[in-house]
């Protein structure tokens, strides 16, 4: 029994990090329906902000605060200059944001070089319970992830801002006719989604290698989680993240990482084939 604990802890940790990374995507793609191919690069920029603040010898928490702010500023620029002109034009959005993702990657290569960087763990040590021990930072990361998921759900499901944002996304013309500034709601929903990507990048930076190509590796399972879970309801990302992350992590331990990935894609294809709207139902049933 006790040997199962680390395995499940690992799987939970993997799932929570996956959901943390997909959280911003859930707002931008799941709720707003914008396919932002540069989302992975925004995650990467968050991690690089952390690299930079650590190189400058600043406290870890400064990076945690700065990363979402810097990336939110990028998000605001991207929304104003690019996305707002192409809402509801998916193909144009994919092309434009794909181009943007390449540009951002090259920018980072120019500034930081193509090699990978590492961020030291802010909290050393591990928690020992009986025979097994677990790194403390991973536990902190899991807890932070749970708090951020809860906070995002609270923002969109329990606050006036969230109610207006969901109304604007469901029926933009009607929301505008009720006096709601739809431009503003779209803009800030997008910016919050990008800020979350930046924050996720900064939080995850100490346990991964930070390099210009890192975005894609997280973008794909993120999109997959949302598609599998269902793009409409907020909780879709949790269901999808649990399936994708859980299967991947457990099978990687028990069989092999390659077999795990193949299984993940087969399961994803089956779910999307059998339930095209995802596990928790479809996007905006109108």
């Amino acid at each position: 029994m006790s040997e199962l604990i680390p395995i499940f802890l690992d799987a939970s940790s993997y799932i929570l990090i996956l959901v943390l990374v997909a959280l911003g995507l859930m707002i931008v793609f799941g709720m707003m329906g914008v396919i932002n191919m540069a989302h992975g690069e925004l995650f990467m920029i968050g991690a690089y902000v952390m690299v930079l603040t650590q190189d400058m010898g600043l406290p870890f928490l400064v990076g945690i605060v700065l990363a979402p702010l810097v990336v939110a500023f990028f998000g605001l620029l991207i929304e104003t200059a690019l996305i707002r002109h192409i809402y509801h034009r998916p193909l144009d959005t994919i092309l434009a944001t794909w181009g943007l993702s390449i540009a951002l990657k090259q920018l980072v290569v120019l500034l930081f070089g193509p090699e990978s960087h590492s961020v030291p763990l802010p909290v050393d040590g591990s928690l020992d319970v009986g025979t097994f021990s677990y790194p403390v930072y991973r536990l902190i990361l899991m807890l932070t992830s749970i708090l951020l998921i809860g906070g995002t759900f609270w923002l969109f499901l329990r606050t006036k801002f969230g109610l207006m944002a969901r109304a604007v996304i469901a029926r933009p013309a009607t929301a505008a006719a009720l006096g709601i500034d739809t431009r503003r709601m779209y803009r800030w929903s997008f910016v919050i989604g990008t800020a979350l990507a930046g924050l996720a990048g900064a939080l995850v930076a100490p346990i991964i290698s930070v390099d210009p190509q890192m975005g894609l590796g997280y973008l794909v399972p993120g999109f997959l989680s949302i598609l599998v879970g269902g793009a409409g309801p907020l909780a879709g990302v949790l269901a999808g993240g649990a399936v994708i992350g859980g299967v991947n992590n457990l099978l990687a331990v028990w069989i092999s990482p390659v077999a795990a990935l193949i299984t993940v894609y087969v399961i994803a294809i089956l779910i999307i084939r059998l339930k095209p709207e995802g596990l928790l139902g479809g996007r905006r049933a109108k």
Partner: protein
Amino acid sequence: MLELRNLSSGYGDALVLRDFSCRFENGRVTALMGRNGMGKTTLLKTIMGLIKAKSGSVRFDGQALETWPTHLIARAGIGYVPQGREIFEDFSVTENLQLGLLGQDPVGALPFSQIYDWFPLLKERADQRAGTFSGGQQQILAIARALVGGPKMLLLDEPTEGIQPSIVHDIGLQLAKIAKETGLGILIVEQNVEMVRTLADQVLFMENGEIRESCDIEAVKQDDTLLHRYLSV
């Protein structure tokens, strides 16, 4: 007062509304009648800024609105109940009503108690998901949602479409009462003669994007030649 002058609008190159001019007084209920495709919905959408006017002006209480974005037109005091009701099905009744308030200036807004006085059903079912409502109940919710922000003028697009006759009559009586009590102006696009007779002070008949005839409701009640001319196919 809502005043339209030489208003033209449409979709793409097609002009649906041509040089439309009319005045709608506060406190009066005007019914706009005509067959399908005559530009009635286009007129309401143009007033709300959901379709941009190609030319002409929309003035409301002295302000020129024709270039304003929709949410500012709503905040200027024009409420809109779109065709098909467009309630937020996944939200509760209370959340739907809140959305009518959140974008508005709280100063002019009505308290929920006032809305519940007019439509007690909404109080009884406050926590119910709006999507589970019948068509008539959804219509009442859509009207209440537009009223809660405290508009001075209310635009209604075919509110009786697909609704059972008993509720149509109730809605008509309630709206007439609200207009009388609050001085609300109403512009209602409607094909249902019963609703127009219950509610309207004045009737405009529209054809091919223009007003062809304008008359008092009493004239319509006494003689239905106009109804036959402009409504029958």
